[in-house]
């Protein structure tokens, strides 16, 4: 047990980041499971981070309430945004959500209250490891149960064939919007937690590269179930730190992992055990995202 204690002490920040990454990966999993490629979750994370940090700083709002308000702010942004962007599909949807992320970043850069380019410093370190891991457990459990429900089945149907899904009585736009808002809530919650873990935030923390990183976590881990994104996030967040001695080659290694996974396991690392079924799915052309 002492070893675990020592490990946590030495790596507690890393362990915290792993949990936050896993939450973020789950936030994008929801939309990917419904077959929608959205890249707005870094921005929702930013909204959660800034709103919760500013509430604590200026109004003295208690930490849990600040987190909730941060998440609700992101959800309230996601709903009208989703109504507009879900007229688009595929790559166009990805670009539209990416553009939204840029808008958020520029607003954060230009607004005095968010500290402009310097961002916010001296955010009180209120996030404990158990906050992160309890959140992760709750979110993963809820998504796992939802996956087996009528909602999860509707998302899968939309991913497989939107027209046919509508024909089965599924209100396609509503279900897509639901997935999008759920993802935004989780991303913002993770953002609030991470802001109070790192002491300082700045607009570029929530920009394009973060959006892509979140997507890569989920894709490398795999979309068939919520375990995939958690696994992918843990691996890709911890690896660079654990491979510090090889740090000149870290990015190369990470890129290599992504390439190998996409080529040989397009449904993600969690599907290693079902390699044959994956091949079969590729043959029938259903392996695009799931």
């Amino acid at each position, binding site marked *: 047990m002492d070893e675990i204690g020592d490990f946590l002490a030495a790596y507690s920040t890393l362990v915290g980041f792993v949990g936050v990454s896993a939450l973020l990966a789950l936030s994008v999993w929801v939309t990917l499971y419904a077959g929608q490629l959205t890249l707005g979750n870094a921005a929702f994370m930013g909204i959660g981070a800034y709103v919760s940090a500013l509430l604590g700083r200026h109004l003295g709002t208690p930490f849990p309430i600040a987190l909730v308000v941060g998440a609700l702010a992101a959800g309230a942004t996601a709903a009208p945004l989703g109504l507009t962007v879900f007229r688009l599909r595929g790559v166009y949807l990805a670009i539209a959500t990416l553009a939204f992320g840029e808008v958020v970043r520029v607003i954060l850069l230009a607004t005095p209250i968010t500290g402009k380019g310097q961002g916010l410093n001296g955010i009180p370190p209120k996030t404990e490891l158990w906050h992160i891991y309890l959140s992760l457990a709750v979110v993963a*459990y*809820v998504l796992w*149960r*939802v996956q*087996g*429900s*009528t*909602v*999860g*089945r*509707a998302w*899968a*149907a939309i*991913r*497989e*064939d939107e*027209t*046919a*899904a*509508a*024909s*089965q*009585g*599924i*209100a*396609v736009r509503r279900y897509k919007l639901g997935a999008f808002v759920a993802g935004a809530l989780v991303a913002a919650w993770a953002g609030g937690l991470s802001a109070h873990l790192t002491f300082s935030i700045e607009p570029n923390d929530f920009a394009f590269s973060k959006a892509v990183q979140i997507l890569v976590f989920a894709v490398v881990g795999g979309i068939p179930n919520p375990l995939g994104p958690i696994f992918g996030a843990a691996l890709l967040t911890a690896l660079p730190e654990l491979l510090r001695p090889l740090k000149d080659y870290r990015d190369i290694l990470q890129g290599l992992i992504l390439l190998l996974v996409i080529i040989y396991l397009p449904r993600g690392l969690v599907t290693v055990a079902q390699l044959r*079924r994956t091949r*079969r*799915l590729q043959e*029938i*052309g*259903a*392996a695009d995202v*799931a």
Partner: protein
Amino acid sequence: MLLEAIRITRRFGGVVAVNAVDLAVAPRQAFGLIGPNGAGKTTLVNLISGHLRADGGTIRFAEADVTRSPPHELTTRGIARTFQGVRLFKGLSAIENVLVGRHVRMRADAVRRLWPRAAPDRADRDRAAALLERVGLARRAEALAGELSYGDQRRLEIARALASEPRLLLLDEPAAGMNPTETGRLRELMRALVDDGLTILLIEHDVRLVMGTCERIAVLNFGRKIAEGGPAEIQRSATVREAYLGSEDVA
């Protein structure tokens, strides 16, 4: 009448794909829709199922005006369909496909299932399994839809459509690519469904199948309805022969 289309019209650019067509389908009837390629049959089905919006005219289903209803709402009202060329959820198993088809008849259970011991959806699974049995796919329940043979895929699509407990079933060329044995079984299935109280609107190239299944038939050509009547009447109609059967034998 269960389904009524009144002067329904749809244009694509300059082409009038469906031109002021009237259609009246009585309950518990097998109604056939035939016509040469490009006659507007599939467009008409897409209008009825809500996948296309009409430019003019009215569609009534069970006494309600449904001209502007979206597809998912029509499914709730009791219209189910299959697609020309099959559109299954290929990455899901056969039984999952049928369960998705039951979507509008299932209680939304996302919240209930958060409780760890929430009862599984056994009643729904049993009904889905019974439907697979009915179309002869009981042993393929766990196979991925994309792995099934073409004939099996067509039958699965019918099971999925039936899962929504429809009053009207739209079948868009269900026999395409089927061999004579499979077509024979399809005809039996359709007759059995009508006997059980279902109404079927059948679009088919296989004129023999339509003549053998439907008690009433409408003929489309260039987006217009050129004839309607019982199989015998249609066979005798000079207009139909001229428009449609020039080189083909209807009997």
